[in-house]
């Protein structure tokens, strides 16, 4: 079966191009990274979400000032529903800054209010290392000179003031926002500071946002190998760490949708090679350690760590496997985790029967299609009606998605894991894998599912 049209899509046949049932003999990918069908109940977000919400928001020591009406700032306050932890919680995520543009600002321009807002925010929080200004939809239309205002303010307050032109309407999804954030951070921050000292084992971890402390599970693995993490982009990052990222010997790229741009730019300009990694599950984490070790010539160390850590968790994972084997999962994530997790679930004996992404590109779908079995449904930018149809008709044992889909799954009686913000993470690396397994077990076998009744309306 090639491309297919779900029942809920009869009125919007263009969705067929996005909906593929995998067959081994074919070389088809669902259409991706294009404008959403208007009014189709998409789950997608906007360019601002990709820039401020995903990539910039985790940077822990700058004032993230949102230039626009109040809503956009409110949504990303404290990371919004994301759980980007940092070691600076008394500032990072605690405060939310907005120019709160009013009607007269929209009519007469918001430059004065922006300028004053930058100065005042700096005055209240002089310890912040910079001000990032994120512009939202209306700003892109009224034509405020963001660059000019930021430059003036920077001269006045003497710390970085960087504009991000990430108006929500620019892209077809969050994806363009990732790109804008990457480009801006590369142009304006990377290479502007030299590290105090360099070692031969300096590495950046690019594209990990420290969701519920993922990085704190990942970093020790590399540090025990003798590697120094120069910069984490952008989970728990300070702006200075990003500024000196250009001196790393290697970029380890985790999220391969939101950060290939900066990895490519750093490779071109500074010659930093890239190792792409998946840091979920035993096999993939071990492979990442081996790939990095091979680059630095630390193979023996890596094998020691792998042996030691895997020995600790393998029996427990095996016990989980015996409970999970034969279950069927539907994975719907932003993009890379949809394919990162197919293999992770396979370690449990859990088959991915459907996989979807919100803003994946062709390369994401190629990886998904490589990993799933024939007959699996692969769907791009699924809307809520399609999700309900898939959950109802395919009856997966588990749905792993984000908050917006969580209560839909619950209302349909489908066990669910929040893969965006996690239930109780971290989920990355070896120790995180156990957390993940524990949460999967909880939801799969919660007694409450057995208490649900089928009741016809009175």
């Amino acid at each position: 079966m090639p491309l297919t049209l779900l029942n809920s899509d009869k009125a919007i046949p263009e969705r067929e191009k996005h909906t593929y049932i995998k067959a081994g003999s074919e070389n088809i990918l669902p259409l991706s990274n294009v404008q959403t069908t208007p009014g189709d109940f998409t789950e997608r977000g906007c360019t601002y979400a990709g820039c401020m919400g995903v990539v910039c928001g985790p940077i822990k020591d700058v004032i993230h000032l949102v230039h626009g009406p109040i809503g956009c700032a409110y949504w990303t306050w404290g990371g919004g529903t994301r759980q980007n932890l940092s070691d600076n919680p008394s500032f990072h995520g605690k405060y939310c800054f907005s120019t709160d543009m009013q009607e007269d600002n929209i009519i007469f321009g918001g430059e004065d209010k922006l300028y004053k807002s930058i100065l005042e925010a700096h005055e209240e929080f002089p310890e912040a290392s910079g001000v990032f200004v994120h512009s939202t939809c209306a700003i892109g239309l009224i034509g405020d000179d963001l660059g000019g205002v930021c430059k003036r303010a920077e001269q006045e307050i003497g710390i970085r003031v960087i504009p991000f032109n990430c108006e929500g309407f620019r892209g077809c999804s969050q994806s363009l926002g990732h790109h804008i954030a990457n480009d801006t951070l590369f142009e304006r921050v990377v290479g502007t500071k030299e590290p105090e000292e360099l070692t031969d084992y300096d590495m950046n971890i690019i594209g990990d946002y420290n969701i519920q402390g993922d990085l704190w599970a990942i970093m020790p693995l590399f540090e025990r190998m003798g590697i120094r993490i120069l910069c984490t982009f952008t989970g728990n990052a300070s702006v200075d760490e990003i500024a000196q990222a250009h001196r790393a010997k290697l970029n380890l790229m985790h999220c391969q949708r939101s950060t290939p741009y900066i990895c490519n730019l750093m490779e071109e300009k500074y010659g930093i090679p890239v190792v792409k990694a998946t840091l979920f599950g035993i096999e993939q984490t071990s492979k990442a350690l081996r790939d990095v070790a091979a680059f630095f010539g630390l193979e023996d160390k890596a094998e020691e760590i792998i042996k030691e850590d895997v020995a600790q968790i393998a029996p427990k994972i095996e016990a989980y496997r015996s409970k999970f084997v034969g279950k069927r999962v539907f994975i719907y994530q932003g993009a890379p985790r949809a394919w990162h997790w197919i293999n992770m679930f396979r370690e449990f004996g859990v088959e991915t029967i459907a996989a979807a992404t919100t803003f994946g590109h062709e390369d994401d779908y190629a990886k998904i299609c490589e990993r799933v079995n024939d007959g699996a449904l692969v769907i791009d930018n699924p809307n809520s009606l399609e999700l309900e149809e898939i959950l109802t008709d395919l009856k997966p044992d588990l749905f792993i998605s984000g908050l917006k889909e969580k209560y839909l799954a619950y209302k349909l009686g489908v066990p669910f894991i929040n893969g965006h913000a996690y239930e109780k993470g971290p989920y990355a690396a070896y120790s995180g894998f156990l957390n993940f397994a524990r949460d999967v077990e909880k939801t799969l076998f919660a007694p409450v599912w057995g208490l649900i009744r089928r009741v016809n309306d009175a």
Partner: protein
Amino acid sequence: MRSVTINPAKICQPIGAMYALFGVHAAVPLVHGSQGCSAYPMRMFNRHFGEPVQVAVSSLGEDASVFGGKKNLVESIKNVIARRHPELIGVMTTCLSETIGDDIDGIISEGNYEDSKVVPIHTPSYVGSHVTGYDNALKALVTHLSEESEPANAKLNILPGMVNPGDVIEIKQMLDPMNISYSILSDISETLNAPLMLPKPPFPRGGSSVAELEDCANARGVIALCEHAGGSAAVYLKGKYGMAADTICPIGVANTDHFLDAVGDMTGAKIPYSLERERGRLIDAMVDVHMKTCGKRAAIFADPDIALALAEFVTELGMEPVIVSSSTASRKFLQKAKSVTDGEILNGRDLYELQRAVKDNEVDILFGNTKCTPIAKDEDVAFVRCGFPVYDRVGYHRYGFMGYHGGVYLTDLIANAILEWGERG
């Protein structure tokens, strides 16, 4: 006053309009804007109510932002109707579509929607707040849908405002024993507190029906529980159809007394003994804890009408409302706040300012939503969660503060917050 907002007290208009639409049965909110304007508010509803919500968006992109969003809007309405067959679509604008200047009223009036009503709602994010958005949505619904028909009926329209499902239930439980006929517009009591029973219905059960909205023209009276969120619709109904109108937020003893008196005046119904008993139970609960509540200094942050009513209730508990803070700036709030407190009034100021005020005023107990939790921790004050959004604890949407029975719940929450705070030492 600062130009920069630090820790906003308000959200923008579209989420308020969605809130109103979710209380209409088989209604779909359709946001004319960019995709963040649907995705982000949905998450806030998910967090507060623990319910799925569905919002359509016209997905304006760069082309639409330059050339206008008409094509996207027309296609969106068509797609929503074809796939969902809703009774109502509320098309709400955003800062984007308002700045582009799309004429949504004109665009909508050109279409033929068969069984679905399509109502334009103007919710530019750069004016007012979520409260304004709710108010604009409800006014748009009654303006576009209400239809006078003979003869007028004996119904009462109750406009609850941006309150919790639990509040609406409290209101119903007071009105039902009075044997009067009423419509709650809009009614989220079931739609945003839905049971898990399979099969899942295509739209949540409950909610006001479009027929009720049409019929609201023929009622004998209207009571808006929140003047800032529903008040404009009440004014419209009064002006257009000449029905009696009143505004009372029934939180606390006196406010609930007034509410029931107003209901009695409009309908001729007597207050039944069962409600007198409930009133007695509230008084009993208040007496039981008055040694804990009397003399406590309270800071209250909420939407304007709720903040004012809470200030009156804490005064009945012998507390002193030393700070009364509204999410949304309003002249009416400012006027009324002066009559309920001699303390500090924050009229639409941000929560950074609220924290400053809490520091300055030797506050014992703070009332506010989840965004206030860090203030309560930093300043080491007792904390009562109220308003929207509350997502760092579960279940707050299920219970109401309104009416005598809701007052008992609130009294207990307050006393327990004070006890817990005392135990922390």
